[in-house]
């Protein structure tokens, strides 16, 4: 029996993985070839999807991108024995794009059948949880703090410090919530982890529960991710059956219940307090802080709010020790970040690597330039609220502080590439338009400012009192930054200001700087 992997990741499915899997089964049946098709997560090499892997004596051999029409040819060429074919890439693990990464958080994604508990255990699953069960809550918090792990959702707050705050906060019950409302365009790491290694997130949630003495958790997943919702729900059901959730986890005294909640299309619910409101069944309106959610969170109780990747990274910290994790990265950015190469890029996908690699290295070594073949003009890092950076800034190291210094941010690690056909005035306008659409409406700088921002940019582009309106736009950006309750209004000026700074010729068209 030959095992053939065809991803069930929704990105792979979006370019025909289901049809390829069906075609392989059909052709195998026609030839009487003993083949077992296993649906794995994606290896994250999106330009090769659907990526088919055949388990050969020497290891897993990759073929891609495969269409249903290629399948008969692959069988004829002997792909079941790992033989060469024009779509072949040799051993998957030796593809340089993959081999040069440091996959800690994504170590299992794409390798295993996401819902197989055997696969999970044979690839290091539950190692961290078993260790956590032998530790006191304080020890877990301390170890996570020592690792230098910062929240991967965007804000970069130290995870261990947050947990310690919840542990020390008076009140009962306490909650662990996972923010899987991955709304930033250009980001898909949370989705891929949930679809490709769901037990990792469950294990992370249970460990967080032990660390803060909470026994109930919620994962808030955006509705745009139906496959992730389905996979997580199935994984939770299995986890209850095998004793990884419920009372007496792994026979210990600790109990933990976990539930999935689905969002409803509101970007603002990725903001932690809006997410808590949404979990409570309310409009996703941002709360004023303080009180911090760690003190008064879900239903007014002490609550951990962590991103998917933060919770998954905790497993690496506990399984290998704080020092191991700390040894990756630079400055105050420790460990690895799961970067996501997206947009107009030849080789897009998941690049997990230590902090400190420059943006340019990321784009050249991994990205391979634009897919259109045109030169890169701008790169937006950190989602819709992140800055647009010009090639002159590509020597910037991917590090929280280095980005902050130049008025940019790493956010959730999304890197969106634009070629030279982009109109940066359109992108600046879109930033304001997006804020106007997605603002929860609670505070005026965001609710009204975004609408005024669109209008002012329209006037600048139309050549109406350009100089005065640019000053007005700068002023508006300052007001929104300083006066908004949360990052929605507070960071919308970031992309706008970056366009003003780096691409002024696109706004002020009177100079005719662009063809």
């Amino acid at each position: 029996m030959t095992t053939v992997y065809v991803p069930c990741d929704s990105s792979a499915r979006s370019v025909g993985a289901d049809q390829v899997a069906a075609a392989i089964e059909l052709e195998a049946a026609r030839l009487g070839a003993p083949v077992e098709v296993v649906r794995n997560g994606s290896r994250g090499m999106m330009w090769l999807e659907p990526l088919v892997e055949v388990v050969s004596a020497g290891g897993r051999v990759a073929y891609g991108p495969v269409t249903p029409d290629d399948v008969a040819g692959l069988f004829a060429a002997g792909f079941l024995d790992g033989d060469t074919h024009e779509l072949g890439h040799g051993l998957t693990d030796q593809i340089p794009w993959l081999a040069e990464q440091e996959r800690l958080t994504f170590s299992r994604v794409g390798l295993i059948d996401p819902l197989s508990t055997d696969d999970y255990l044979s690839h290091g699953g539950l190692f961290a949880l078993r260790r956590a069960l032998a530790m006191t809550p304080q020890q877990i918090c301390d170890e996570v703090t020592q690792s230098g792990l910062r929240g991967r959702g965007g804000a970069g707050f130290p995870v261990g410090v947050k947990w310690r705050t919840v542990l020390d906060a008076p009140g009962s019950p306490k909650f662990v919530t996972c923010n899987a409302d991955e709304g930033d365009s250009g980001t898909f790491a949370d989705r891929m982890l949930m679809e490709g290694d769901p037990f990792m997130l469950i294990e992370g949630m249970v460990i967080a529960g032990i660390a803060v003495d909470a026994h109930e958790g919620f994962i808030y997943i955006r509705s745009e991710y139906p496959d992730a919702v389905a996979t997580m729900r199935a994984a939770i059901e299995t986890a209850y059956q095998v004793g990884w959730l419920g009372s007496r986890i792994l026979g210990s005294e600790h109990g933990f219940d976990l539930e999935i909640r689905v969002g409803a299309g509101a970007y603002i619910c990725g903001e932690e307090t809006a997410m808590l409101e949404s979990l409570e069944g309310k409009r996703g309106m941002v709360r004023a802080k303080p009180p911090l959610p760690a003190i008064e969170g879900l239903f007014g109780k002490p609550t951990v709010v962590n991103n998917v990747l933060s919770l998954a990274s905790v497993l690496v910290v506990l399984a290998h020790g704080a020092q191991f994790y700390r040894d990756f990265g630079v400055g105050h950015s420790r460990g690895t970040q799961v970067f996501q190469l997206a947009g107009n890029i030849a080789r897009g996908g998941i690049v997990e690597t230590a902090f400190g690699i420059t943006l340019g290295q990321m784009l050249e070594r991994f990205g391979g330039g634009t897919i259109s073949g045109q030169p890169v003009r701008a790169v937006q890092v950190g989602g819709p609220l992140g800055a647009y950076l010009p090639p002159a800034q590509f020597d910037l190291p991917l590090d929280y502080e280095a980005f902050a210094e130049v008025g940019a941010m790493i956010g959730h690690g999304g890197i969106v590439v634009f070629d030279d056909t982009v109109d940066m005035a359109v992108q600046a306008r879109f930033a304001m338009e997006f804020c106007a659409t997605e603002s929860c409406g609670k505070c005026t700088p965001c609710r009204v400012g975004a609408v005024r921002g669109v209008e002012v940019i329209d006037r600048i582009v139309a050549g109406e009192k350009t100089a005065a309106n640019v000053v007005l736009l700068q002023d508006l950006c300052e007001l929104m930054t300083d006066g908004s309750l949360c990052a929605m209004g507070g960071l919308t000026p970031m992309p706008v200001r970056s366009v003003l700074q780096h691409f002024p010729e696109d706004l002020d068209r009177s100079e005719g700087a662009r063809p």
Partner: protein
Amino acid sequence: MLSDVSQRHAPWSPDVALETIGAHAGQRGPLLPVLHALQETFGYVDPRAVPLVAKTLNLSRAEVFGVLTFYPDLRSTPPGKVRVQVCRGEACQSVGGHALARHATSSLGVDFGGTTADGSVTLDEVFCLGNCALGPTVTVDGRLHGRVLAPDLDLLLSNSVNNNAEVNNADVSGDLT
């Protein structure tokens, strides 16, 4: 795990609505799960469901209405037979998303959020479907499609509309026998 895409919806019925609400009323913070369940059952959240939800969950009608109208996913009117979402996020913009969005609105003759006059297609915009390395991205009846250009969208739409018509015809003939 592959998500199950179902397009068949029940006609409005207060009894079915109450049953649906009741199935989710017991959990913490039940309102959003209840509204999702209603939409899954009927394809939209009928305004007639609002007082039923309010009474069951001991909320005011204003609170239910407020939540219903806050979230873009929740509809108060029945959707078209085929639902199309076009991603408007930056990653899709960088590979022709603007042009695809213009093509979608002009070829269907509706703005985003609208349903064609014959009720066949509802067109929505969405900000990111998490397929950012394989854009432009759309969904048709909940199925994700990457690397979609204007002709691909036309093909997806005509296939889906035709499939839908066949399903409906089959239903009709089934009723007659």
